[in-house]
């Protein structure tokens, strides 16, 4: 009898999870479907359950590919900014995290405590003086201004330190006996060993930069410099006259990320769970 009761529970629990998963995916699926609807219909009725399949078509995508050079400028900016962020933040953060883990040096612990401290200070509180600094140094409205606060990401430093702690220190000694310099040890021996952590942080930093909003909103001023989130947000007007670009553009913003996720799920998971802090 107990078995029968368990079977009912199993069915119920699995059914509940299937429903919850469907609810979680519903907004994305409905975005995808709505992107094939004429923007005028979308504006009139919103995202709706009654889909008139006769209306579905590729108009929004045709428009965005042929008429909207502005959207592609944003796309390019987002790509460039994310790429620079990933390269610089991986390079510098791994170096710092590695040093904190592998060397015993004066002040090493102080630096580590500072890393944790920065993790806890909300960026929003520093943003006005930083914004002023960008104006004073005339860096406003440049890629550099957007990237600067992300170059040495405390989350990444913390993650790399934890990861490096698990690396074999004997390798370093062996390499020293072979005459390798400390820099050679890092770049040629230890950094390759940190591969999985680099992948996880590349994804975390890339995603954070791709989706970043508040700071780029402050420092980017001209339409041709906007990133995707800023550009798309300008289309969110009460008049709804840009829904074609807005909705097809949103789909193309998240598709690359979802594809990456499908291929590199493992790295996403380890990257985002160490993050914890809002990206």
């Amino acid at each position, binding site marked *: 009898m107990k078995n029968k009761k368990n079977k009912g529970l199993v069915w119920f629990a699995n059914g509940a999870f299937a429903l919850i998963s469907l609810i*979680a995916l519903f907004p994305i699926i409905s975005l995808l479907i709505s992107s094939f609807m004429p923007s005028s219909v979308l504006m*009139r*009725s919103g995202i709706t359950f009654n889909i008139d399949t006769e209306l579905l078509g590729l108009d929004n995508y045709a428009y965005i590919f042929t008429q909207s050079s502005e959207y592609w400028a944003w796309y390019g900016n987002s790509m460039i900014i994310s790429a620079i962020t990933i390269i610089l933040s991986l390079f510098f953060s791994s170096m*710092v995290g*590695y040093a904190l883990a592998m060397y015993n040096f004066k002040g090493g612990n102080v630096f580590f405590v500072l890393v944790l401290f920065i993790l806890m200070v909300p960026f929003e509180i520093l943003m006005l003086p930083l914004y002023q600094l960008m104006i004073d140094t005339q860096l406003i409205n440049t890629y550099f201004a957007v990237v600067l606060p992300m170059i040495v990401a405390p989350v990444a430093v913390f993650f790399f330190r934890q990861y490096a702690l698990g690396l074999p220190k004997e390798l370093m000694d062996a390499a020293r006996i072979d005459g390798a310099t400390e820099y*050679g040890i890092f770049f040629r021996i230890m950094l390759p060993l940190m591969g999985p952590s680099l992948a996880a942080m590349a994804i975390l930093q890339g995603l954070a930069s791709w989706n970043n909003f508040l700071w780029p909103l402050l420092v980017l001023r001209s339409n041709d410099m906007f990133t995707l989130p800023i550009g798309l947000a300008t289309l969110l007007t009460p008049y709804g006259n840009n829904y074609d670009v807005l909705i097809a553009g949103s789909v193309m913003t998240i598709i690359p990320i979802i594809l990456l996720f499908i291929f590199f799920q493992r790295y996403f998971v380890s990257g985002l769970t160490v993050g914890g802090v*809002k990206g």
Partner: protein
Amino acid sequence: MNTMSNSGARVRPKTKRESSKVMKFLNSKKVVPYIFVTPFILSFLVLTLYPAIQGIIMSFQSVLPGQVEFIGMQNYTRVPNGTFYKALTNTTVYVILTVIILTFIPMLLAVFLNSKVIKLKTLFRASLFVPALTSTIVGGMIFRLMFGEQETAAANQFISFLGFDPVNWRFTAWSGMLLMVLLASWRWIGVNLLYFLAALQNVPEELYEAADIDGASRFQKLWYITLPQLKPIIIFVSTITIINGFRMFEESFVFWEAGSPGNIGLTVVGYIYQQGIQQNDMGFGAAVGVVLMLIIFVVSFIYLIMTGTFKKEGA
């Protein structure tokens, strides 16, 4: 590795000694870590320490282009006003709701996902995680279209199916808050779920075996073993949710851009943005920022004391 040791050997003989001295200095184990850490030191000084100090100084100033003067406490005496209280109330309500939702729901889901009851674990976990990949802007745009004021929009269709009247979602106080909380929950449940799943995997199996021998029920095991074992991760997740909640801005911006009707969606960071950037009153914005920082520190500190994080139990 041999190639590296040769790197200094090609230098002309005369300078060889000097350069090798410099090399030796740069390569000594006492110097190397500081060189590695230099980017962090620079970034800390320029991007954290400087703006932190500058922010405090600015909060005592009236900052106009080319005309900065100290005005004492005047910015701070202006902070307690109706709009600020409205923003603080909204933020606080949002923090309380998100902490409850984003701690309990992921924990519950994780307990089920971790049990043998659920099949297709990876699929469920992945589907719940996918919303975290969208930006708040894209997510918010979808929510705006789903929760449109039209009767045909998905949310209104759904509630009229249940027998309720259509709601003007973005223009009513309670539903405005609901939209922000829903959007955040949708995007974060999957991430927090992963934290709890990771923690559950670390609960020693022997504890459950011992409980089985003692004849403990499913619920007793959950209450007396799983929950106490999860305590550190519960505190972690709820603390970052509190901090992220006080920092909230985008979830409000995406629904109402610059301003919401009757400020139903105004948050403290939104108020800083409005005053500091849009009204160009940076001194006042900085003062609100300092107040917000104090609030965050005090609230998280009280929370961590209440949950016993500072006690040395070794738990």
